[in-house]
């Protein structure tokens, strides 16, 4: 069949019409929810984060209002100075002087208010940002793994960063909007007060604006949405390229990926240009209306001034106000899109915050004491990641205190899943998992975690020193303990050869170590945890048998009085176990020690023989049999 694989390849290459299978960015089509501009539920949720700072917010609003008041007052002072203080040839300095003094006071208040307001708002916005992020992060620490499995880290990161940032932006602008709205009303009020008719005339411009916005809004919204969406797709594609760069280069995908990315980036460019058009089209409209309003004031107001029916100062004040009047309208238009984005972000944030915590400590959960016996028991356990497709079917076995039990079975038979259940990463659908004689659901997760040390099939290391990685979480572990553990697993020598030794820095995911070395460190980490139960999921799969033998020797002492659960495909690894449990297709098919199982002549003995038979010696039918029983998962 491999031959056919090749002959076909050539002609497939030829028909380039067919678009390549796109992976780039395809997995991150954000479900953009551009909800209502104002969603009271979301506002409520966000308010709970702002609440602790409410005194500051009140002060900020007060400052905004006084700032606005000063903005209103300043033209009035000017008007007063012009009308009453500047008669040509007059010698009454009094009015002018007083006007100047009041003006000075006003600008100092203005200064203080604007300083206070921005300080408070800026500060609170930062605080709230970090609070929201912390709340989400700490919630994510409790959310069940089945949810985490389905959710990409990148997506969560964009919640924790992008969405949280747009909430910050929203907070800042919303306080400023209060000022803008106050300014708007203030100006209307003052204008009507100064001269009612002229004021009304000026306000005529407003309805026009609203009609225009009515047409503008839905279209603009759509274009903003598209821009946001294409942006997150392009960003997702970039993140993917960074994470998968080694696979990309090794499979020579750079050109295809670039082509696909170009599409995404180009779509991003296009939608942004459209959005910019929509965002800017309001500018000339607002400006024209400003011009119109001023023209009206000049013609109507001006002739009334000529007829001495109006003070020239009033007209000047009007002209000032009109210019200020459209500023808040303009910025409110801008804030509209900020609000909209914030609501969408708020929605996504609340989604994360509302992910139910399926696996929680029961109300009267017990603490698993370190003195428990260390037994592990599966009682008729049924479990599936998708409840409709069980991965473990009625599995029952018991590991007695101090015993070392091995789990073997073909790939995908559910061994790692068993281990996850002991730790209660997932909830069983039927039956019970008991640790130390207690159902894991009756224990606190924290105490359970402390009594079980795991070496996971995938060794994950954190960026940081070797030392910190080995004593991970057990921050009171001494250097001696760490070195001891490293020596036990035979990691000491290569650690000492690293630049910096135990204080040498590991790259991302331990990238500057070989996989076997990473596995050794994660093994040492489990030893330092000093737990009653040790779970080794393929802990030595990437390590040669000689090193493994050394580890096993060193472990004998360590394992005394502890319970061990070991998974391995290399059967030599587990030959010494007290008992071997064979899983196949999620069912327990045999158990016993090595000699018993070999005598049984079932799956175990077949797998064992396959381990050592030379390839050509195995008749096809034996192979077939072993394999069909072996991997029908």
């Amino acid at each position, binding site marked *: 069949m491999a031959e056919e694989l*090749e002959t076909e390849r050539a002609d497939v290459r030829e028909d380039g019409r067919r678009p390549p299978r796109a992976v780039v960015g395809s997995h991150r089509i954000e479900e953009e929810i551009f909800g209502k501009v104002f969603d009271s539920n979301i506002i409520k949720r966000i308010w709970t984060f702002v609440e602790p700072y409410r005194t500051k917010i009140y002060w900020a609003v007060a400052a905004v209002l006084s700032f606005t008041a000063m903005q209103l007052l300043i033209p009035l002072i000017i008007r007063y100075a012009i009308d009453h203080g500047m008669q040509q040839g007059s010698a009454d300095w009094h009015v002018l002087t007083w006007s100047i003094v009041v003006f000075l006071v006003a600008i100092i208040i203005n200064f203080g208010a604007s300083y206070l307001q921005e300080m408070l708002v800026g500060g609170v916005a*930062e605080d709230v940002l970090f609070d929201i992020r912390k709340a989400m992060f700490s919630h994510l620490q409790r959310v069940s793994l089945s949810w985490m499995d389905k959710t990409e880290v990148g997506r969560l990161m964009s919640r924790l960063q992008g969405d949280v940032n747009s909430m910050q932006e929203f907070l800042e602008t919303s306080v400023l909007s209060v000022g803008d709205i106050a300014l708007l009303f203030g100006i209307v009020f003052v204008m009507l007060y100064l001269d009612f008719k002229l004021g009304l005339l000026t306000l005529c411009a407003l309805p026009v604006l609203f009609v225009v916005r009515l047409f503008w809004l839905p279209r603009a919204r759509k274009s903003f949405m598209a821009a946001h969406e294409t942006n997150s797709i392009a960003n997702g594609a970039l993140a993917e390229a960074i994470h998968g760069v080694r696979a990309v280069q090794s499979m020579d995908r750079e050109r295809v990926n670039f082509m696909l990315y170009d599409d995404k980036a180009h779509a991003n460019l296009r939608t942004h240009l459209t959005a910019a058009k929509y965002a800017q089209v309001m500018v000339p409209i607002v400006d024209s209306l400003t011009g119109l309003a001023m023209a009206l004031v000049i013609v109507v107001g001006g002739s009334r001034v000529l007829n001495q029916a109006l003070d020239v100062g009033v007209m000047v004040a009007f002209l000032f106000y009109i210019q200020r009047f459209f500023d808040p309208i303009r910025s409110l238009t801008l804030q509209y899109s900020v609000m909209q984005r914030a609501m969408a972000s708020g929605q996504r944030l609340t989604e994360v915050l509302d992910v139910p915590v399926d696996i929680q400590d029961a109300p009267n959960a017990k603490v698993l004491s370190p003195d428990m016996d260390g037994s592990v028991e599966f009682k008729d356990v049924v479990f599936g990641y998708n409840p409709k497709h069980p991965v473990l079917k009625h599995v029952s076995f018991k590991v007695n205190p101090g015993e070392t039990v091995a789990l073997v079975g073909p790939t995908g038979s559910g061994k790692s899943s068993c281990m996850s259940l002991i730790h209660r990463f997932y909830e069983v659908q039927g039956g019970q998992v008991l640790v130390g004689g207690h159902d894991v659901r009756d224990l606190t997760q924290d105490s359970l975690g402390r009594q079980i040390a795991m070496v996971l099939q995938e060794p994950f290391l954190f960026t940081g020193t070797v030392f910190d990685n080995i004593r991970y979480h057990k921050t009171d572990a001494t250097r001696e303990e760490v070195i001891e553990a490293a020596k036990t697993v035979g990691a000491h020598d290569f650690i000492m050869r690293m630049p910096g030794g135990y204080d040498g820095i590991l790259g991302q995911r331990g990238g500057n170590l070989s996989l076997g070395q990473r596995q050794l460190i994660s093994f040492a980490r489990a030893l330092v*945890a000093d737990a009653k139960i040790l779970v080794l999921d393929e802990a030595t799969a990437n390590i040669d048998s000689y090193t493994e033998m050394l580890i096993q020797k060193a472990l004998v002492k360590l394992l005394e009085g502890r319970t061990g659960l070991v998974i391995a495909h290399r059967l030599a690894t587990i030959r010494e176990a007290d008992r071997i449990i064979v899983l196949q297709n999620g069912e327990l098919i045999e158990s016993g020690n090595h000699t018993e199982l070999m005598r049984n002549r079932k799956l175990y003995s077949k797998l064992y023989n396959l381990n050592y038979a030379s390839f050509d010696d195995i008749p096809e039918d034996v192979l077939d049999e072993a394999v069909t029983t072996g991997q029908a998962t």
Partner: protein
Amino acid sequence: MSSDATDRVAKPLASLALVNAAGWGKGFSILTRITVMAFRHPWQSSFAIGATLVASTFQLMIPRLLGQAVDHTQVALTGGNAGQMAQDALLTTALLLLGASVLRGIFTLIQNYYSEAVGHHMGYRLRLACYEKIQRLSFSFHDSMHSGDLITVGLLDLEGVRMYFSTALVRMVLLTMLIGIGAYMLISTDVVLGLLALSFVPFVGWRSSVTQLRLRATWLDLQERLSVLTRVMEENLGGIRVVRAFAAQEHEMDKFEVASQSAVTLAHQRVGIRVANTSAMTLSFFAAMGLVLWVGGTKVMAGQMTVGTLTSFLTFMTILQMPVRQLGLMVNAFARASTCGARLFELLDLDIAIKDGKNASELKVTDGTLRFENVNFAYPSAAKNQVLTGVTFEAKRGETIGIVGPPGSGKSTLAHLIPRFYDVSGGRITIDGQDIRTATLQSLRRSVGVVQQDSFLFTTTIENNIAYGDPWAKEARIERASESAQLHNYVLGLPTGYETVVGERGVSLSGGQRQRLSIARALMLRPAVMVFDDSTAAIDAGTEQRIRSAMRKYAAERVTLIVAHRLSSLMHADRILFMEDGRIVESGTHEELLALGGRYKALYDLQVRPGDDILSA
């Protein structure tokens, strides 16, 4: 590939060239470089700047006209005729004002639109350049750079540079225009009053340059702290199983808290700096206005000036009020662009360590013979640790070479040298007599397939993952590859079959399923040299035998290198190399090595003979 496709493939080079061309003279400041890049879109940027000039001129006309209007109302009503004339004059002024406002609006639209457009076009070019660079940068670069930091450069720093044109440059032009022309107009009207009206300018200039420096410094610092925070969060979420397994949630929250606090403290400081600056600038502006009012008022009273002129002075200043407040933003934008630019350009200017040589030619595979000649190697990041020393061997088409050795003995490293993920430090590697460094990277990497030890699966469907190296492949071929890798039956059992998404890095698969998927992915390629780096460790012996049997024909047409720890995986190999500390210490067939009675034999005994003696020892 279609011609369309080839055209677009040429693009990365073009866009890189454009970005690089802007980089002449390293000594030139980053801002100059960004500016030059912006003007590589000549039409849009000239439209933007031109429109800014026109719009600001109209904007400056407005106070003039308003002043005129006020003056017209001040005409003494001597006769009926004069009143009528004043009315007409008012009407004319009003119309002019309306016209000026409309035009200002239209030109502001053009200004804003085109300056954004320039930004977006720059952003597009930069994105492509950045993507291309990241894809091409060699493994040693990616080893040294945390992916989170790289994403920050590609997203945030790029954004900072993109925004430069509209938020910094155009705004600066606008401001210079308003203040410059305004200054001329004011001073020509009344020297003293004009100087007073502008008295805030030097203060604002000084403040903003000081603030820019401080903001810039803290911006870098903040980025640094935020990236620590990002790293903490990202690794926590990526390593969530470890965190849960050790019940380390509290520990992780502590780490988060520390990182978060340090960032938030600095963020507060930055708010302080920024706010102090804007408030002081606004204050100085209003103070200047107060001066104008005072001195102007005196002049009006003394009959040296009309109320109208004073009004136009004051209106001019209100027009300036917005830009002055924006000055703070502009300063911020400059600071941001220069720091972001520094980081972005550092990435874009990086030399790609491994690329085609000057006169690289296509690799011509004839016999398909791979040779290592006295190869030495040390990782660039730890140059003192010699990882491979004097590695020499040869493999012909159809041969299978097995490699064993303890962890860290250099097996993966050896595998990574063949497709030139790293370059050898000494000796050479040849394929059919051609030094791999003289071949083009593309042809080389197509001729060498590697199933990496911790292979990366993409968050996409199983089908897309298998076809990653050959995205045009037909379904039938994908299924056959998956059959050979013993994955097909499993996939058929899934509710959504090949359309099933595998989860991030393949979390929803078992260890062995992940490995089989990467084997299937590799089988889609047709390389002359195929390396399986410990890629069956999580697969049971039965399934593995089955895979090997399916691949027998496949292996007959190429050199196959198998790294494995389970000796049954490689005992049938034509030659087995035993590696230790970067050297080949034993080599030969299974039988020869057993007869030799060395390390390989010890390993074999450990795996075959019951180990009572070992544990009781």
